[in-house]
């Protein structure tokens, strides 16, 4: 009897143990690797900004402004190529109803993944108070929200700032919408072009001429820290590097060098300018300390060294040189030591520009009868060409290092028409290529840092 029991016990226990062992396996949960996805732009719904107390500001009624602000945000996000604003016609909910807590089901139903709601009111001092919220339609949570107070005339900047906040929250990197572009506006006959230094918002709005076109101006460059521009102008047929302060409107000669000066560019801290000086037919790279105006020679080679550009940490300078036989890209320490060639592909390379993000150097590649925009890593690896047109030149980076602006020259046709130059932008994917609207032809664009 006891033995029987004992045996039973043993059996039961063994059995139970066996079961446990296998139960463990049977319950193993599923693990799924997701390595592919959708690269379509993110669908986003941007509602008109509403107001509770209708008023008329100097820039229009609050209703109008609310609509315009939503429009500018939608246009900003759309041009980035990363977002697809949903046509407001498709909205199920009215913007006004969504202020407190959106009915997210209505937004999921139209395929939206993110939602922007906002409102604006006029303050007693005439300024407008604008606030917005960005919602994750799936987790039904607010991702970010901001409130701003500004004169109503500045509504475009408010809209750009909101775009920047949304972009930053959804992509993880800073935006570039509240920025400006300086460039050379070109008008008139091909042989006698009138070139004027011009400035506009990144989206082409608020266009202004900064010079009157009497002198030839070239290569404007934004200071990375101040609302300042360097540019070259021919004054009495002598090229000089100028410094222009946007806030004060003051032009200042940086240096009156006896020799030719080219391609000035600021250091990341805005306190130095690196440039090319030509002396006795030989071009070398120099650096000028702005407070002291002291000039140091960085390269000393019989080849032509030109187009210098600082790395964002200020420790390196990239430039191009024909010292190796053909025009190629080089990197050196910002003290002029350790010069290393980084480009080795077929063709020539020109105008290297270090990305503000530090991870890439943009350049113009010349070969196969074309000028194309490209990028490579600072060690020369990972070369990619982003455009494939007839003639693209002079890349400039958006402050977040995701977009390049450049100018494109149209080929001449049989009747001798063409040759016009227009501003274009392309992002790092190479797919999102867009025309930048300017009132006239344009060349030599330079992107400002984010405005404060």
């Amino acid at each position, binding site marked *: 009897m006891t*033995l029987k029991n004992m045996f039973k016990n043993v059996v039961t226990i063994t059995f139970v143990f066996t079961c446990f062992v*296998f139960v463990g396996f049977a319950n193993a949960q599923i*693990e799924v690797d997701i390595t592919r*996805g959708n690269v379509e732009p993110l669908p986003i719904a941007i509602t008109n900004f509403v107001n509770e107390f209708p008023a008329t500001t100097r820039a229009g009624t609050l209703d109008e402004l609310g609509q315009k602000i939503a429009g500018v945000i939608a246009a900003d996000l759309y041009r980035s190529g990363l977002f697809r604003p949903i046509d407001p016609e498709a909205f199920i909910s009215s913007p006004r109803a969504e202020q407190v807590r959106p009915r997210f089901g209505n937004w999921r139903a139209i395929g939206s993944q993110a939602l922007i709601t906002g409102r604006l009111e006029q303050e007693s001092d005439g300024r407008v108070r604008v606030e917005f919220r960005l919602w994750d339609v799936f987790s039904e949570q607010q991702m970010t929200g901001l409130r701003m107070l500004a004169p109503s005339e500045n509504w475009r900047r408010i809209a750009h700032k909101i775009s920047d906040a949304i972009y930053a929250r959804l992509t993880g*990197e800073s935006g570039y919408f509240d920025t400006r572009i300086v460039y050379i506006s070109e008008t008139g006959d091909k042989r006698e072009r009138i070139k004027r230094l011009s400035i506009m918002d990144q989206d082409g709005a608020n266009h202004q001429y900064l010079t009157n076109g009497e002198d030839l101006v070239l290569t404007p460059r934004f200071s990375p820290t101040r609302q300042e521009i360097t540019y070259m102008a021919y004054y009495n047929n002598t090229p000089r590097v100028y410094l222009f302060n946007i806030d004060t409107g003051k032009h200042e000669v940086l240096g009156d060098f006896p020799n030719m000066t080219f391609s000035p560019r600021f250091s990341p801290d805005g306190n130095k300018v690196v440039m090319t000086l030509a002396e006795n037919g030989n071009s070398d790279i120099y650096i000028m300390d702005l407070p002291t105006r002291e000039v140091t020679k960085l390269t000393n080679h019989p080849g032509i060294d030109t187009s210098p550009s600082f790395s964002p940490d200020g420790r390196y300078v990239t430039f191009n040189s024909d010292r190796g036989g053909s025009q190629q890209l080089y990197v050196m320490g910002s003290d002029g030591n350790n010069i290393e060639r980084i480009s080795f592909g077929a063709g020539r390379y020109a105008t290297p520009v270090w990305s503000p993000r530090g*991870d890439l150097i943009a350049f113009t590649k010349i070969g196969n009868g074309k000028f194309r925009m490209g990028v490579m890593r600072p060690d020369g690896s990972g070369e990619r060409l982003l455009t494939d047109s007839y003639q693209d030149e002079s890349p400039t980076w958006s402050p977040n290092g995701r977009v390049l602006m450049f100018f494109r020259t149209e080929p001449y046709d049989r009747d001798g028409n063409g040759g016009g130059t227009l501003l274009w932008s392309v992002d790092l994917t190479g797919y999102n290529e867009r025309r930048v609207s300017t009132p006239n032809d344009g060349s030599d664009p330079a992107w400002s840092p984010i405005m404060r």
Partner: protein
Amino acid sequence: MGSDLVNELKLGLIFSVVFHITLVGVSVIGIPSLKRDFKGLPEPIPVEIVQIDDITRVVEPKLEREVAQEKPQAKTPKPKPAFQKPTENLSKNAVPLPDAKPKEKPKTPPKKEAVRLKPKVTPKPKPRPPSKLDMGKIAALIDRSKPKEEVSVAEVKEEDVIKKLEDAVRKNRVNALEARRATASLQAIIRQKVEACWSVPAGAKDADDLLVRLRISLRLDGTLSRPPEFLDRDRLFEGGQEFYRTAAESAARAVRRCAPYDLPKGQYSLWRQIDFNFDPKEMLGSGE
């Protein structure tokens, strides 16, 4: 009276000692070897051959057949000493084990998908080491623990027990294979679905390091029973991890957007909880 009590106590003691030894023995020798045996199954490689179509083809059915065929023969020769001894001298009327098995086996190979095996995939005919079967060891243990006199009573039982155990093992093995197949199939369905729902965060820097591990828990109706759970949650809140946060949020949006998950209810135990590894590396191209 007194001697009876002593006897009782002795019996109790013997019982206790034997019981504990058995318990320890089973847990130390028996179970691990069961486990080893289980692991010894050549890994089916479901993921590679899964094309995303309706039916998932998995490699192992053939292997299973092999296991099935092999087992009866393999069983008999080797464990004979340990295993068959009791059967031999104890019972002639007991159902012979080897016969019983082949009858059952043919039923077990999976019905539908087994046939659709791709001929390309030849399972390695790596025969499992002729069953150094756990059973043998367990049987041996059981054997040793058994007093010789009480033969006839325990004997039938043991027979039953061994059969039961073997059935359990076999069933589990089959279950495991079925589970694997089901898992592979579910993985394919889920992957296809979620990939379509995922908007990859564009242009992030350091794409190499943006693997997002995410766990979801599902109700039987396929809806999320709670918010997706980030398995590397701490990283979300670290400074300088904006790209990671973006990637993580995009992953969470994807699994939410895909809900409800219309998966076979019968396999709920398999998909009640799903772990995802979202890796944008291939999409972003590292550093480019």
